[in-house]
């Protein structure tokens, strides 16, 4: 079995190499990024690039914008998706199954179909150049995929829990908030990670809805680095690293729940 480490390590190096290359480029002296032959370990390592990258653009502003959008969208998703999931998983009512099939079918719907009418709607509401188009929709169900994921998790929890609580006179809202939610941390953490990362990384929606630089997110701002300082690849890579780090921190702090969530919600198809 020891020989297994050989292909496993080789593949690992291959997969992580581009990211290492980004770190390496971000530490090179501006102007020497493309020295030939390529240099993996820059000497000297110019840590000052990170300071310069931050100073070149209103990086702090972009960071604040991105954080605001990501936090608002994620909070809305977790809250409203779990509410809908509870309705679909734990309450019987007329029309439930039909509506659930409707929800599943919207998972297959490409965003592109509704892009134009939504843009027109938001522009008529004067929401262009505000964060509203990028956050408000997430407070309405948080996306079919998230509802599905949490619903699948709720289904794995025994119904006896609800029954016992109902006997004691607990309302559905109480069963949801005090019983099921605390037991569903893995599924909720999975939703937090997926939604937060998606919003943090999103490019197309901010590109369409945000035109004034004061509203830019990191994804849009990063693109600006290139057009304005096209030759400064070291700074660009430093700024990119700064955009990646929060995602990594989020992933590592929720990693334990994330794997569990995927296994328990039947995402693997069983």
């Amino acid at each position, binding site marked *: 079995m020891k020989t297994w480490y050989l292909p496993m390590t080789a593949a690992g190096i291959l*997969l992580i190499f581009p990211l290492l290359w980004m770190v390496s480029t971000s530490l090179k002296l501006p102007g020497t990024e493309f020295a030939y032959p390529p240099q993996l370990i820059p000497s000297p390592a110019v840590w000052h690039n990170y300071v310069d990258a931050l100073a070149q653009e209103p990086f702090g502003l972009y960071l604040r914008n991105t954080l605001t959008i990501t936090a608002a969208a994620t909070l809305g998703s977790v809250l409203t998706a779990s509410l809908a999931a509870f309705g679909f998983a734990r309450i019987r009512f007329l029309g439930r199954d039909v509506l659930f099939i409707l929800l599943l079918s919207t998972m297959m719907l490409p*965003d592109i179909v509704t892009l134009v009418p939504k843009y027109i709607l938001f522009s008529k509401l004067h929401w262009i150049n505000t964060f509203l188009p990028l956050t408000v929709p997430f407070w309405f169900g948080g996306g079919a995929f998230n509802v599905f994921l949490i619903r699948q998790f709720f289904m794995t929890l025994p119904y006896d829990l609800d029954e016992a609580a109902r006997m004691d006179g607990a309302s559905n809202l109480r069963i949801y908030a005090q019983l099921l939610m605390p037991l569903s941390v893995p599924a909720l953490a999975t939703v937090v990670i997926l939604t937060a990362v998606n919003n943090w990384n999103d490019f197309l929606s901010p590109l369409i809805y945000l035109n004034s630089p004061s509203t830019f997110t*990191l994804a849009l701002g990063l693109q600006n680095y290139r057009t304005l300082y096209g030759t400064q690849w070291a700074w660009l890579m430093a700024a990119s690293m700064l955009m990646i780090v929060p995602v990594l921190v989020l992933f590592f702090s929720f990693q334990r729940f994330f794997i569990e969530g995927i296994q328990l919600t039947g995402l693997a198809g069983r």
Partner: protein
Amino acid sequence: MSSEARTGTANSSSLSPRSSVLSTRRRSAQRWRDARDGYLFILPWLLGFILWTGGPMIASVAISLTEWRIITTPHFVGLGNFVALLHDNQIGVALYNSAFYVVVGVPTHLFIATLAALIVNVKLRGVAFYRTLYFLPSLTPIVANSLLWLTVFSTDFGLANAALSLVGLPPVQWLSDPRFAKDSLIVMSWWGMGAQMVILLAGLNGIPDHLYDAASIDGASWWERFWHVTLPMLSPAIFFNLIIALIGAFQVFTQAYIMTNGGPDNATLFYVYYLYQVAFQNFDMGYASAMAWLFFLIILVFTLVQFRAARRWVFYEADVTR
């Protein structure tokens, strides 16, 4: 099920007609409460569906029948936009580019994800570290990743050509040669297979050991165990990934926008990129909506074909036990 079970136990001791009337009333009150609560719980989603999905879809049909440049008032042109689609050469180019990205990209992507999942599906010291290592690239924001791969694919100074020259191969114009630009974007997408790998890994974990034990007792070789146990048991997870990857790949946009601007020579003018230009650079909303519908129908057909084909290769345990 829950309401019946409860009223059933509550009334099991008394069977007088009066209490059965009471229990019927109580049951219908409970049913009414459940209906109210159920709709209240799903209300945010239901409103969202009407506001951001159902409503816009209907609006999109209406818009596709108009000539509308946002600042002007829309005027009805019937199927004019759809007729125009047929005469637009760019549509054919964009459809070909997207189809190429899907047909070549998705299977290779899935193959690599499956391979990676199999490699790290072992009980060895430090395997958790390797799993994280394989997964990390998929977390890279697409903008940052696109900028990074611009440096990797640079013809004169890039890492990719440096690697080729190590093994004595001539340099390739990864992004500036129309023949290779799409392939380069596909190669780049392989590094983002981590999310699929995690799902496949969960699928592999769910395969019960007794199946392997039984196969071993029957004298099955490693390859036979893989072919007759692992692959069929993993097929639902592979299928799930296939559908997700298919819909995702059809909507490829950001890489082309940042790395190639749709070029060279329209080689990476993917369908969504062209739609973006029509809708948000020319503000031709009617034509863009017609484009969106055509594309939606194509994706739908592709997806349905996969669902049909799945009957032949996806194995569901429930079908057997039933």
